[in-house]
């Protein structure tokens, strides 16, 4: 019986480990900046990878447990599960960018988001870690498509926000006549910000569309101006403004960095603020 009890909460125990792994990764990425040590950088990446693998294992185990309990659903159904998936998405998107652009400095500004998201699951108010059966409204295949697209989009926006913070820090230092040499070139940061938004925007669009399709099946209307829907639209409008400003009006640098941070604030409000402050159809997560 004891073995069974352990097995039933194995997934959350693994997440507790992953929290520390991501904290360690954040510290390593920060240490890597001033020391520029190759081995420090590599170990930061390896630690992050180990965290990602453990987190993936936790999600798989949670799904298996849910099937064993006879409920059988993917782990995307409450605030706790969405937070875990959010941090997972951030890490995946970040690792892809690190791999593609061979730059580890960004890690120090993006990994904290993954760490905070996971740490929040242990301290946040009203977060239940138990596996629960799905209420009828959530019993839909649209759930998986909707959650995956939304959170990958959110993760891309988290990256763009992290990069924008780096941009503003470096730009301010340069304005004062100095420089922060270990931060990547302003042009690189500006470009990364734009690229992350270009990944996030289609994903957010798809997330809104899958949500609308699902709402149409479950509630009989694809759009009801529910607060969550409205806030996702607000987020979408802000990033649409970002793209137009950047594409055609030629906004660069500081202006787009600030826009990106405003956009991510809207993302966070869509995801958490609406649930904490306003009630609506998404009250479960």
């Amino acid at each position: 019986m004891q073995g069974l009890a352990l097995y039933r909460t194995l997934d959350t125990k693994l997440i507790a480990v992953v929290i520390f792994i991501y904290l360690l990764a954040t510290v390593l990425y920060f240490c890597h900046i001033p020391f520029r040590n190759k081995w420090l950088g590599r170990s930061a990446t390896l630690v992050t990878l180990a965290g990602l693998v453990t987190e993936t294992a936790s999600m798989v185990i949670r799904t298996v447990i849910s099937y064993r309990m006879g409920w059988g659903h993917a782990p995307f159904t409450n605030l706790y599960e969405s937070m875990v998936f959010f941090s997972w998405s951030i890490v995946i998107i970040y690792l892809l960018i690190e791999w593609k652009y061979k730059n580890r400095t960004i890690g120090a500004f993006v990994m904290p988001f993954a760490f905070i998201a996971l740490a929040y699951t242990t301290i946040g108010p009203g977060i239940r870690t138990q596996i629960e059966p799905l209420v009828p409204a959530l019993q839909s295949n649209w759930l998986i498509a909707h959650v995956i697209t939304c959170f990958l989009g959110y993760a891309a926006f988290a990256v763009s926000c992290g990069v924008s913070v780096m941009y503003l820090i470096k730009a301010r230092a340069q304005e004062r006549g100095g420089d922060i040499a270990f931060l990547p070139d302003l042009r690189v940061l500006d470009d990364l910000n734009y690229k992350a938004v270009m990944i996030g925007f289609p994903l957010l669009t798809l997330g809104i569309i899958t949500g609308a399709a699902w709402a149409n099946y479950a509630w009989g209307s694809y759009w009801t101006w529910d607060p969550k829907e409205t806030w996702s639209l607000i987020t979408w409008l802000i990033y649409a403004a970002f793209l137009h400003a950047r594409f055609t009006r030629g906004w660069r640098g500081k202006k787009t960095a600030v826009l990106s941070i405003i956009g991510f604030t809207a993302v966070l409000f869509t995801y958490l603020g609406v649930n904490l402050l306003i009630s609506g159809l998404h009250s479960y997560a």
Partner: protein
Amino acid sequence: MKKSEGLWGRLWGFFSSLRLTIFLLFILAVTSISGTLIMQRANPQQYVKTYGVAGYQVIKALGLYDVYHSWWFLSLLALLAFNIVVCSFDRFPRSWRFVREPLRWPARGVLGEMKPQERFNVALSPEDALDKIQEVLKDKGYKCEKKLEGKLGRLFAQKGVINRLGVYVTHLSVLIILIGGLIGGIWGFSGSMTIVEGESSRNVTIFGSHKVVTLPFDVRCDSFQVAFYPGTMTPKDYRSTVTILEHGKPVVTKDVRVNHPLKYRGISFYQASYGTISNRVGTLTLEVIPREGGDKPFRVEAKVGGEVSLKDGYRLKVVAFFPDLVLGKDNQPMNRSEDLRNPAALLEVKKDGRPQYRSWVFAFFPEVHSVKDAPFRFRYVSFKGLQYTGLQVSKDPGVWVVWTGCTLILVGLVISFFISHRRIWVLVEDKGKKRQVQVVGNVNRNHAAFSQHFGEIIKEMREALGGSQ
């Protein structure tokens, strides 16, 4: 964008400006927030209670009780749509020229100033060299055209020209979605209907008003059921068995569940709510215990007022049911409430149509039996009162327009974000002693990736041409 004079020109300039677009996107984002903070479509009393009389006056004047359908919000949307249309008309001709009449043979002076470019010498004749170069570019997915002008061979290659049109696909699809919403708003409706089990209705009460839409057919609720996950209070399934009747004849019967609506003649029915209308009528489930030494106990279900057959010609009639039994004046049984707080039923056992004996069953006092040594004793198992189901009913002829727009917007975004228009011009000139190749590239976005790609192409070309001299 040409700057034309006069009122018309200035108007055109205003409505085709991106400054207006960005302004509208921001204003829409900011004003949308208000509707998530202020209650929408509530009663005037609720506003007065929350914001005071003065607050309610402001809310009423600005239409803040229904922000997303207020005249100013819809005007902003209309303005955005108009802005999109004007911008598209303003810019489309230029983009279309890239598709219809690409710049195949620009002047050499123009080419000389473009970047990236590369020059190298070859041994082959211009004609042969261009053949080899064309193969390389075709392998990379480029569409090529060649021409020879005496000693000068020219080649033009491009791919991803569709990227020039992606932005129009995206913007057109935003318009399509808005039109779809408009169609739904004008010719669609959304409301609810409440049907008691066993009854039928054709009236739909429209949300946010007292208007009633009459359907051209009847909807009957055959039964309603809630299922729970074993051992929990979490509902697993809400299910209404619904029959559509045309001129009183059943045509379709289907279980309507959450996430599984019923669609009939363009009208959709969704499981939305439920409740118990009365606990005096409904279905009683009993355990029947035959006299000692007889058969094993078994269960029967009977409607209040109805009969069910037991055994050996005996029948059971549920004479009356009391959800919350109390004794009134003169010890008359009566109901204290409609809730199942003290359920009791008066039963009558018959044989060959003649009443034999009457017996009470009490849910909370199973050992009380009014008749001793009867052929059957009874135990209360459960009671399901008469339920009603609440169905959301909606008709939205614009929904397919919206889905078309949604599909197109994704196509448009992929075309504009992940494809770039790449062009390559090649000149091979026979200068007598040496033959020189000049390769020029151009891309409309993502220059860093293109210059890497360009480098690879040059490398492959030189390999294909057998090294340079």
